[in-house]
Structures are given as C-alpha cells and as structure tokens.
C-alpha cells in the first residue's frame, strides 16, 4: 500500500460519504441503541409527553415473549437451510450455463428476470401454486383444487400435501419457505458466480481436460476452489440477509406470519421487530434488533474465520 503524506486529503475525500453516513446511518443506529434502553418506549406515547426509565426492560420483554424461541428457531433454520441450498444450486446453474454455447445469453437473461419481477407478484404466485382450495379440515375433507404443485406430484402418485393451508405441518411450511427463498435468491447469486466463473482463466480447464479430469472432479477440485472468494462473499452476505428474512414470509403467509389458524408459526426475528413497531413498541423493536445484530455479527465472524481457512485467494 502506498503511503500518503497528506492524510488530511484522505479525510477530505471521505467527508461526503462520512457525513451522509453519520446522518443517515450512524445516527439512526445511535438512536436505536438509545431507544433500546428506554423501558417500554413507544413513539406515540413519547409524543403525548410520557417519560421512560433507563434500563434493560425492553430486552427482558423481548426474551420473555412466548414466541421468542419460535422466532429465533425459524430465523436460524431458514438461514441454515436456504443459504447452502441456494448457493449450491446457483453454482450448478452458473457452471452449467457457462458450459453451453447456444441459448446461453438468452437463458442468462431469463434467470435475471426475478430480479426485476416485483416481489408482490412472486409471493402471490407461490402461494397460489401451493394453495389447496377446499375444506381440508372438514370430515370428510373436500378439495376443490389441490394446486399446481400437488397436481404435478399427483402424476407420480403422491397424495396431495397440505403445504400452507389450514392445519399444515411445520415442516411443510418450512419446505415452502425454503423453496421460495431459494428461488428468490438465485438470480443475484447466479449473476455473481457467473461473473466469477468468467474471470477464471480458461487454461485451467484446458489443463484439466488434457489430464482427463471428470466433470464432477473439475467442478469440485478446480472450479469451486478458484471460485471460493466469490462463494465466500455470496455465503457471508446471504447469511446476513438470511437472518433478516421477513418479507418472503409475508409474501407467502401474509402478515399473520403463519398458516391460517396458526398465527406466528413462521414468525422470524425481523417479523417480531415489525410486530413490535406495529404495536407502537419502538423500544422493544430496538432491543430486538440489537439482539439480532449481535447474532448476525457473531455468525459473520464465524463465517469470516471459516472462509479465511477455506478460501483460496
């Protein structure tokens, strides 16, 4: 690195960014921390002149919540399931895409479509695809239509599965969420990984070819290690994003964050934060987001540690 004698210059160049960050990022963070320690703080209440004591009450409230463990469990589970699946799938797609000639650009453009497709539309279509219409809980059950997914599975003789409707099981719900989140995450990951693949020197592949390396071995022994910085980047950022999962659940289950009759079954940490904001518990929401931040921070540090060992630069 080059040493600059004019250190003031560095600060001068940084100043626009730092000032903006101070006002629109740092200050909100400081404010969040402040509110997190004001017991039972509510913004509307504050406007009416109420005062709040300083303490850990908000944190206690958060942890005491009867569904807190559910939120935490869902958050972690979704993250742990979706990040590897979406990364591996994106990698496979990118590698396959990179290996074909005709239609490549066309397919690449198609894979980017979800990026510009509105999330409302996507959530609605997923819900519709898995939705069973009918009185499934009546005796005997009555099914008007089992939804496109069940109809498709029916071809292979699978009985209709209650994915997201009334009385659906936890794991069915999780499965749908995983499929949806993975689907949502693919375009960006494919884009990044494809970009990475294209910057790998083709000679490595020629060398592997001359040596008779099988496709699977080429992928595992050459592509993955050479792509590891990109993969690490994708994994770390998707963990960060994964812990903030919320809107995708709203997309499928609506604001109830769970199948009908099982409100909150799919709730997550950010879902809880929104719920607290809705109920005018800004203090509680702030505390919850600090807790979430701590979790993300810890996971990211672990991720960085792992990637230091595994990633080839």
């Amino acid at each position, binding site marked *: 690195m080059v040493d600059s004698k004019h250190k003031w210059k560095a600060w001068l160049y940084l100043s626009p960014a730092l000032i903006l960050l101070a006002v629109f990022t740092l200050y909100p963070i400081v404010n969040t921390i402040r509110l997190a320690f004001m017991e039972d703080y509510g913004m509307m209440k504050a406007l009416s002149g109420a005062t709040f004591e300083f303490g850990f009450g908000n944190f206690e409230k958060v942890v005491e919540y009867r569904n807190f463990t559910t939120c935490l469990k869902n958050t972690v589970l979704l993250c742990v399931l979706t990040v590897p699946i979406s990364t591996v799938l994106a990698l496979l797609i990118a590698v396959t895409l990179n290996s074909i000639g005709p239609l490549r650009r066309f397919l690449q453009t198609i894979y980017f479509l979800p990026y510009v497709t509105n999330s409302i539309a996507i959530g609605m279509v997923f819900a519709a695809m898995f939705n069973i219409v009918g009185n499934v809980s009546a005796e005997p059950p009555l099914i008007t239509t089992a939804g496109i997914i069940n109809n498709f599975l029916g071809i292979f003789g699978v009985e209709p599965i209650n994915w997201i409707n009334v009385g659906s099981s936890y794991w069915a719900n999780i499965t749908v969420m995983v499929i949806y989140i993975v689907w949502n995450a693919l375009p960006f990951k494919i884009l990044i990984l494809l970009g990475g693949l294209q910057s790998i*020197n083709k*000679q*490595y592949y*020629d*060398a592997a*070819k*001359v*040596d*008779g*390396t*099988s496709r699977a*071995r080429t992928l595992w*022994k*050459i592509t993955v*290690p*050479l792509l*590891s910085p990109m993969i690490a980047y994708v994994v770390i950022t998707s963990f960060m994003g994964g812990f903030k999962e919320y809107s995708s659940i709203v997309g499928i289950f609506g604001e109830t964050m769970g199948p009908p009759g099982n409100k909150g079954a799919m709730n997550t940490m950010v879902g809880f934060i929104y719920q607290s904001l809705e109920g005018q518990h800004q203090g509680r929401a702030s505390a919850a987001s600090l807790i979430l931040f701590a979790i993300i921070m810890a996971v990211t540090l672990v991720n960085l540690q792992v990637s230091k060992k595994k990633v*080839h630069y």
Partner: protein
Amino acid sequence: MKVVLENLTKVFPSRNKKAGEEVVAVNNFSFEIPDGKLIGLLGPSGCGKSTTLYMISGLQKPTSGKIYFGDDDITALSPENRGVGLVFQNYALYPHMTVKQNILFPLQNLKGEDKLSKDDMLKKAYEAAKLVQIDELMDRKPSELSGGQQQRVAIARALVKMPRVLLLDEPLSNLDARLRLQTREEIRRIQRETQITTIFVTHDQEEAMSISDMIVVMKLGVIQQIGAPQDVYDSPENLFVAKFLGTPPINVFDGAIRDGKVYIGEDAVLDAPGVEDQEVYVGIRPEGFELAEDGALHCELRSVEVMGRDVSIVSANAQAHTPVIRSIINADNKVDATQKEVRFNLKAHKTFVFAKERVTWSMANEGKTLYTFNKASQTLNAKYDGKSYDLGVLLTDEDIAKLEKQAKQSLSPVAKFFIKQGKKLLGAAQAKVAPAVELVQSLIPEKPALTGEITYKLAMGKNKEGQTLYFAGGVDNARLCVTSDIQKAVDLHAELVTKVVGEGKKAKTVVEGYNVYYLDGETKVYPEITVANGENHEKRIFL
C-alpha cells in the same frame, strides 16, 4: 510415438459476426514428426503454430485433415484419451494446490484399468519431480515459487503420467533471459532422458534452433520449411525463412541477375552461370562478408564495433533494405574506421538469391491457374481455355467518364446506381493503376484475419485489346466476377450487397459454390478455388 499430420486445416469463424469472415489459422498442414524427437514449431505470432499444437493435444478440433499417433488415427479422440501432456504458456498451475497436489492431479484422474494405487501415485509424482529437480518444493504453493520453478512443476505435471507426446506452448516466454538459457537446456535433457516425442512452440528462432532436432517454420498457417535447424539456416528456401532465422538478421539487398552474374547496384558480387536475367533479392548473412581491398561490394562505412573475437562492421548501401548493413568478420582483420568506404567479397554459401518477380497472389481451380496478379509489374492476368488475358491496364478518368456516359444510355436504374458507386470508389482511391488491379488487390487481403469488414466492389477496367471489363466481388473470396457484360457484374454486385450487407446475413450463405463469371459473360461454378498468397513465392534461386 511418431506423430503425423495430414492436410491439417483449421478455420476459425470470425469474431465479428456481421463480417462473417473466416480466419484460416492453419492451412493444409502436412508433416511427419519422427518418434522420440524434439520438434520446434517456429514462426511469428499469428502463424498458427499454437493452433497446430492445440489440435495435436485435442483441445481444438481440426476443420479438416487427420492426426495420427503412430499408425492410429486419433483425430476424433478427445484430449484425455490421447495420452498427451501439455505445458501451457502461463503454466496453468492450480493456484490452490501445492506442488505435490498439482503433480498428482493427472494421476488421480486415471480411471478403470489405468488406476494407480496411492503409493504408486506418490512414487510417480516424486519421480517426475526429481526429473525436473523440484522434489524439494513439493509442499509449496505455486505462488511461492519463482517463474522457473513453476515452469518445472508444469513440466512435471505434464510428464507424470508418461504421455505419448509432450507438448509445450511457448515454454520459455515467461522467463527472464538467464533462466531461459538454463531451462531450455533442461528441456533438452528431460526430453533426451524420457525419449518422449516432444513438440514445442516458440516465436524465438534462437530458442528453437538451439535445442530442436527439427524445426518447422510457419507463416500465416502455411509451412515454409522443415528441417534440421542448421540445414534450414544454411539453406533457406525463401526470403521469409532467411529473414526469420539468424541474429543479427540477414542483410537483404535489391539486386539483379544479368549475364550470369549477380549484381547489387553496379557491383557484380557473385557468379550465377546459366541463370535467367531477372530482378532479385540478395540476402547475405552477417558472417558472409569478407573484408577485401578490392572487394566486389562497395559500402559506405559507418562504424566499427569490436566485440572481442569478432568485429562488427556497420555500413550502408543504397540497395540495402535496411538503413545499415551489419557484417561480422574475424577480429584479425584490422579495419580503419576513418575510411569512408569499405569493400567486401561475399562468401557464396552465405549468400542467397531470391526471385524478385513474384506473383503476389494467384487464384486457381483444380490446379489450373485462373488469375494471377503480379505485384512488380502491377498486372492482372486471367487464363481460361488456354488463352491468356492481361486485364490490368491503366484507365484514365476520361475513359471512365466515357464509359459512364455509354452506360447511362443503356443501363437500368439499378445498374446506374452501382456505376455511380463504382466511380465513387475509384475517386476515393485516386487510383493510378487500373481499377481492376486495385479491386483484385483488395479482394485478397494480406492478413485476412485482421480485416473487420467485407467490402464489395464494382469496378471497370480495360484489357490490352481495348475490351472493357467489369469487376465485381468481395474480399471473402466467395465470388468474383470479371466480365465484359456489365449487367452481370452489376447483378452480382447487387446480389452481394443486398444479400450480405443489406440483410446482414453472414457471407457464408453465398459461399456455396464459387461462381466465377467469365469474360464472355458465361457463368461457371467451380467448387474449389484456392488462393495462394504472399511472399513465399520469393523462392530461392540456386546459383
């Protein structure tokens, strides 16, 4: 393992899709590499040597032709089934693996009956490492190695499975000068020890000459000369080969043969008994000069550089292609550097004479020459039915105007339009020579690979008999029309322009059959038009 290449040709589609041009990287390449030899493929960049190497490795498929290893035709086999080892120019060492892992990698890929035990693999890997003397570095990563060490690892990796043929792509180009000397000796040694048929590619003639059993000099995809390095150096078959080999390079002069003597300017420098009078090039190796008070060749002395054993005399001659000529003589000869003139006698075996009058290009069908263009005389000649037609004649602006006037009276609007376009082309080029010649020149670009666009031209000319001829065609060589019937020329031109340029289709679509319009307006389709090209016609004249 003997390697035989038979009529190997590689054509690349052009990168620029709109132009639709194809690039012939390797053209009709045939030669045999004897078993256990070290062969250097030598030529300037873009001559197709690397392409040839990659075709032997199987990474690239030839457009036509066959490759044999021994007696087996392996053209259709993919690289992994050929049993070749390839060392890349940048080594392509896997950066995330240690040296050991890199060398082991090809062995771990072996399947089925070829599969080795772990111990065997390690043994082989260490053998290979020892061979290239890197067995101490096995646990390092490539990034921790010097360039020379990386090169050795790359060779070890290519050698470890004992390939039938070892291929090296510019193996020394990424090394510094000192390492280069050392490594090339190393390659020589390894090849001798393993007796593996080895082919390497280089643009450095010194490198090729120093270690090869045989060199193949290439230019623009065409073999120029094959032979033992010294033979090629001592007896170049054409001016290109003569110029390409040797440092300092050969000195080239314009000369002539008159009355059985070779002249440079007014100096009769050598005898050439029985050789027809003609303009020639005279190439003299730097060591081909002998200082003599009464030497035949007069040169203007510029400077004398003493280099210990030798003395280098720098002088100038009006006929030389370079501003100065460099001659190397024994240091025993004392040179008075204050003199204005220096005179040389020439050593006959170091002096080569090349034909000057050359056909710059020719177009032939089934061995029969159709058109030839002579650059020196700037004439275009067409032959058909045993008759010869000289086509290239100077055409004045007046002539063109007259022709146009005639044309306007009798032509369709489409034809008029193209005549006008043709005039524009002529005007823009400010052609002194007949447009026919200019046209044909443009049809055969010297470096077809580099021209990005197709130009279709329509032009007029007059032959010696005073007959007006019209030309239409494009640089893709797909179609050329020389005809007295202007309508034919115009039609073809219009067809080319609308079909190819107008609709943006690839030129390929009109390449089916090579239509040549004859002078009398008759159309014949010739399936095989070959275009010979370039300076390899500057053949050596043996005195």
